[in-house]
């Protein structure tokens, strides 16, 4: 008779559980790609994760349960309150931090795995060693890069690009040091010092790559770090002969890569170009500095209210400024008020509105905007010519027609929301300052554009009050 314990610890049984686990990851992720099934998909993936953890705990060689419990307890104590309390506006920082700890875990595990091998008598076989070296390098880059991204998003570090002279050469040199040290170990050098050198140069590289990147490029950076963390986890899985880790890691790698490409395309920039240096980081802020004041028309809340109430179709184009001012709830109230009067209101969401992919959608969902009202750029752009009034709230570069028309503009070619094609445009902004990219926006001087100056939230509140009075 087979004892239950022996059966449970049977490697084939464990492998079977891993298959169940990663099948659930894939089914879950498939669910997450549709609004109606997303929540269930997330639950399914979580069940898969629970199965993978239990299966691993069953493995015969696994022990030191006290230390494992301690680690899990510590992680739970930190993770649960963080996840419960984080504000939706702070989600980019949260995701950056999560990317970081994932990369950090990979780097630590590869380091210990290498130490263990040395203690057992020397370098492991190449098929284990190469994934370890890869995981250590990428994990360390991701950990430090993510921490810097977190610092920038949280406002601990300045959001503006921080440059170092000869940046690219320094980065290249650091990468070279890491690669040479890795090759030396792979070629037979048995040295913990060399391994630490890899971790260290990758750490400095992670810092150096993210520090010069400006706030507007953050969606790309976060996606890229997400992809790197996934890849490093997959590499760790190859080193440890663990299928669940390989599949889980590579799914994250794939997802991160897809998002990185989408974000880079939405900004019309290549990934190497973003990684190589900040946007206008060399102080080359064109056009904006020319000082020539062009005429623009400012307006007041009452006029905006009458414009809105006379319209049949209104589009709101929100940008990060809306999130900063916490105006999303007020905007939704205004939309409700207009819809009561039979006016159709929809929202034009640029892929990089916000500080991470899809951030604006989450913020508006939190304000109870139905997701059907949120329209993607390709869907809404043909609809602008039939729109009576477009309200641009806290958005700038993503509405800049220079991207479409002016070949000399640094953002030429970037896909934008064609808000200027609607009958009337009202831009809510703080002042005439330029956006993140420091580029002047011809939209502001158009004949059909009026500007309502002030804090986004109080401006929308005033318009709302004026609409209610009409």
């Amino acid at each position, binding site marked *: 008779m087979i004892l239950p314990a022996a059966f449970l610890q049977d490697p084939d049984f464990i492998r079977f559980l891993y298959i169940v686990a*990663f099948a659930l990851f*894939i089914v*879950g*992720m498939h669910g*997450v*790609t*549709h*609004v109606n099934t997303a*929540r269930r998909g*997330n639950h399914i*993936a*979580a069940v898969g994760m629970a199965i*993978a953890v239990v299966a691993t705990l069953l493995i015969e060689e*696994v022990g030191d349960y006290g230390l494992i419990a301690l*680690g899990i307890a510590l*992680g739970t104590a930190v*993770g649960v309150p*963080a*996840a*419960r309390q*984080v504000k*939706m506006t702070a989600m980019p920082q949260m*995701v950056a931090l*999560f990317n970081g*700890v*994932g990369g950090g*875990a*990979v780097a*630590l*595990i590869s*380091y*210990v795995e290498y130490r*263990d091998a040395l*203690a057992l008598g020397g370098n492991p076989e190449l098929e284990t060693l190469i994934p370890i070296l890869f995981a250590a390098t990428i994990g360390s880059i991701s950990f430090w890069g993510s921490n810097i991204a977190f610092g920038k998003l949280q406002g601990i570090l300045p959001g503006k690009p921080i440059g170092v002279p000869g940046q690219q050469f320094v980065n290249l040199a650091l990468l070279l040091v890491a690669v040479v040290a890795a090759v030396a170990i792979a070629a037979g050098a048995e040295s913990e010092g060399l391994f630490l050198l890899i971790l260290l140069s990758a750490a400095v590289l992670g810092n150096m790559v993210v520090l010069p990147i400006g706030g507007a490029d953050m969606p790309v950076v*976060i996606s890229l770090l*997400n992809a790197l963390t*996934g890849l490093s986890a*997959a590499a760790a*899985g*190859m080193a*440890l002969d*663990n*299928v669940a*880790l*390989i*599949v*889980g*890691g*590579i*799914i994250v*790698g*794939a*997802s991160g890569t*897809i998002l990185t490409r*989408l974000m880079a395309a939405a900004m019309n920039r290549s990934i190497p170009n973003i990684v190589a240096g900040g946007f206008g980081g060399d102080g080359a802020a064109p056009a904006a500095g020319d000082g020539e004041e062009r005429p623009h028309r400012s307006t007041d809340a009452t006029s905006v209210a009458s414009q809105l109430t006379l319209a049949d179709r209104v589009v709101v184009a929100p940008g990060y400024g809306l999130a900063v001012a916490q105006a999303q709830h007020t905007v939704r109230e205004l939309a409700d008020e207009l819809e009561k009067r039979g006016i159709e209101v929809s929202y034009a969401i640029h892929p990089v509105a916000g500080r991470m*992919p*899809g951030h604006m*959608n989450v913020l508006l969902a939190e304000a109870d905007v*139905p*997701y059907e009202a949120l329209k993607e750029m390709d869907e809404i752009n043909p609809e602008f010519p039939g729109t009576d009034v477009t309200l641009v709230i806290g958005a700038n570069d993503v509405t800049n027609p220079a991207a479409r028309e002016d070949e000399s503009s640094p953002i030429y070619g970037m896909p934008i929301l064609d808000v200027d094609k609607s009958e009337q445009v009202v831009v809510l902004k703080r002042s005439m300052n330029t956006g993140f990219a420091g580029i002047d926006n011809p939209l502001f001087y158009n004949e059909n554009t009026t500007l309502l100056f002030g804090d986004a939230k109080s401006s929308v509140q005033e318009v709302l009050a004026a609409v209610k009075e009409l």
Partner: protein
Amino acid sequence: MDLLTELTILVLAAFVGFEVISKVPNTLHTPLMSATNAIHGIVLLGGILIVAESEGFLSKLLLVIAIAFGTINVIGGFLVTDRMLALFKGRKKPEEKEKAAEAETKATPEASR
């Protein structure tokens, strides 16, 4: 398991990942990213696997930290994703509104009786 089997799994899983995730709408980019954060927390398995065989205080300490990091990812990631997804609501369907209206009209005459 030999290297080639692992590479096969890696490559196939990468293609599956691309196929499954490539059609994700903008609306779900942030939840997708935090869900994948939770999934790469799976690296905690790595820590669990080697903690018993590792020797020395430093190694064990680093692995406890790694397990804690992985757990933060897994638990925090799934929780925060769920919180976000709970926010996404559709428009109330017209049928539901009608039903609600019907219920009201039915209720009124009874009340007036």
